[in-house]
């Protein structure tokens, strides 16, 4: 029997300070996800392939709820649809008890189709149409107002309605976060938010039920949440004492980090990102001390997204080629690019080989398959000696990739959910050329459509036609 092959490698030894993380590569082989072998998944569903762990999704949700409910008596999580609105993912969270937080008309309809009752849908975002506002009013969802134009539109709309629409005011405030997210909602410090609240209450046409603040994204410190909670609580207190309008809930938004490593960060995300317990401690402690009587504590709503889904998602792929660049660096070309792994613009994603390897490693650039210079997945990563056909696993890709991905040069791959027993279920098919062309129309003078059996009309990616084994 022939011996296992590893391509020959020579590495120059250079004197210098030792790597602070030691000599060992971060990459350990990851041959399976929740017990499902990577090679079997790729064989059955094609490469590349997104994989989500239902076990981890539920674990994350339960952990977040536990972190807050052990510190504050009234807590509700609302699943942030834009983070990953694949129906299977949404339904896992809704089964666990999450409401829906949506930011567009189509997300709103998706939430309804996923069985979320209207009153449990929070309608956020700066771009709601009149028809979407009407729909949300009819189904008694809470509309989070973003600007005065929306407020006046809704006041106009509410004049003809039998029931007062329920609204919350999105507030932006100075919590010490730079840059301050002041593009969403009404500013607190310059009086805009109070002005909006006054108009809502004074109109008598809208029911003010909540105050909302979303500080930012991927915040690596807990203190701003304490500041925001205090300011929202003070504002709620003013609503009660000055306008005789008790606030039913405070929505502290999301922005909680996962443990991905941000590009340019000195230390890995696992060492720098606070855990959800730390955020819960600051928020709950602030609200408990804000002066509310125990029986009138407002409901605390959190719009968690990334925190719940990021580490439950994996992207499996295959090495297409390796080559050496002009300056001697190794380059590895994978079968998924930045159009599929959008978050590679934000993070230095951890990438592991799926198979065994020796102790020898090398620095390599990781490229995707796109014929575009921007298609760089990692500028430099230390990996074992990969060859064409080797399989890799990218970690913590559950958030934003399966919503911000785009068809560009290559089509979008299939997505599989591993249930709690590790059994794979395809929850989104790989795209085909037919799917891509469904919405296109060719004017008659440019000729007839090619016959359906022609090569142009068929899918072009092997993964597009793969079926589960």
């Amino acid at each position, binding site marked *: 029997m*022939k011996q296992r092959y590893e391509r020959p490698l020579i590495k120059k030894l250079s004197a210098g300070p030792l790597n602070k993380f030691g000599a060992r590569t971060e990459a350990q082989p990851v041959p399976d996800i929740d017990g499902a072998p990577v090679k079997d998944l790729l064989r059955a569903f094609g490469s590349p392939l997104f994989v989500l762990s239902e076990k981890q999704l539920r674990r994350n949700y339960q952990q977040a709820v536990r972190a807050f409910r052990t510190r504050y008596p009234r807590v509700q999580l609302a699943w942030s649809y834009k983070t990953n609105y694949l129906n299977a993912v949404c339904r896992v969270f809704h089964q666990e008890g999450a409401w829906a937080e949506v930011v567009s008309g189509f997300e709103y309809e998706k939430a309804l189709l996923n069985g979320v009752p209207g009153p449990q849908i929070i309608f956020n975002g700066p771009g709601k149409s009149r028809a979407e506002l009407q729909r949300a009013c009819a189904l008694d969802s809470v509309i989070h107002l973003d600007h005065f134009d929306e407020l006046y539109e809704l006041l106009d709309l509410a004049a003809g309605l039998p029931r007062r629409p329920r609204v919350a005011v999105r507030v932006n405030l100075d919590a010490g976060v730079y840059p301050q997210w002041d593009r969403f909602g009404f500013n607190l410090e310059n009086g805009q938010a109070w002005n909006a609240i006054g108009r809502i209450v004074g109109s008598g046409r809208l029911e003010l039920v909540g105050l909302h603040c979303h500080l930012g994204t991927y915040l690596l410190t807990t203190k701003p949440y304490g500041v925001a909670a205090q300011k929202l609580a003070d504002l709620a207190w003013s609503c009660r004492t000055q306008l005789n309008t008790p606030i039913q809930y405070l929505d502290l938004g999301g922005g909680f980090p996962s443990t991905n490593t941000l590009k340019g960060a000195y230390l890995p995300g696992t060492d720098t990102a606070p855990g959800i317990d730390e955020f819960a401690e600051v928020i709950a402690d602030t609200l408990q001390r804000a002066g509310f009587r125990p029986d009138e504590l407002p409901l605390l709503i959190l719009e968690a997204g990334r925190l719940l889904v990021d580490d439950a998602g994996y992207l499996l792929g295959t090495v297409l080629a390796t080559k050496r660049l002009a300056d001697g660096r190794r380059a590895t070309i994978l079968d998924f690019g930045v159009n599929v792994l959008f978050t590679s613009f934000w993070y230095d994603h951890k990438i592991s080989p799926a198979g065994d390897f020796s102790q020898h490693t090398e620095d390599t650039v990781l490229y995707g398959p796109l014929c575009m210079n921007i298609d760089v997945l990692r500028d430099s990563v230390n990996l074992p000696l990969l060859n064409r056909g080797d399989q890799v696993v990218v970690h913590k890709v559950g958030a934003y990739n399966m919503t911000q991905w785009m068809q560009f040069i290559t089509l979008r791959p299939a997505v599989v959910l591993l249930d709690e027993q590790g059994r794979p279920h395809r929850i989104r098919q790989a795209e085909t050329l037919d799917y891509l062309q469904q919405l296109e129309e060719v004017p008659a003078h440019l000729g007839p459509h090619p016959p359906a059996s022609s090569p142009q009309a068929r899918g072009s990616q092997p993964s597009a036609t793969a079926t589960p084994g």
Partner: protein
Amino acid sequence: MKLKKNIATSETGFIFNPATGDSFTANALATEILQLLKQDQSPAAIKTHLLNRYDVEPNQLEKDWDDLVAQLRDHQLLD
């Protein structure tokens, strides 16, 4: 293709170039190839030996051979 005569190699994969002071590590296959080169075996004979001994396709070996030669040349280890 010949290694420079003054290049020292060990069985554990340590390489030293006394002319430049540079030192290198080699993985098992590179070490084996360097040993065979030192024994004045021709590239063709070495490749045949490797194809018989390792689970590798000829095209893969050919590509990796070229890459190794480029590395050796880059590090000024070849005559």
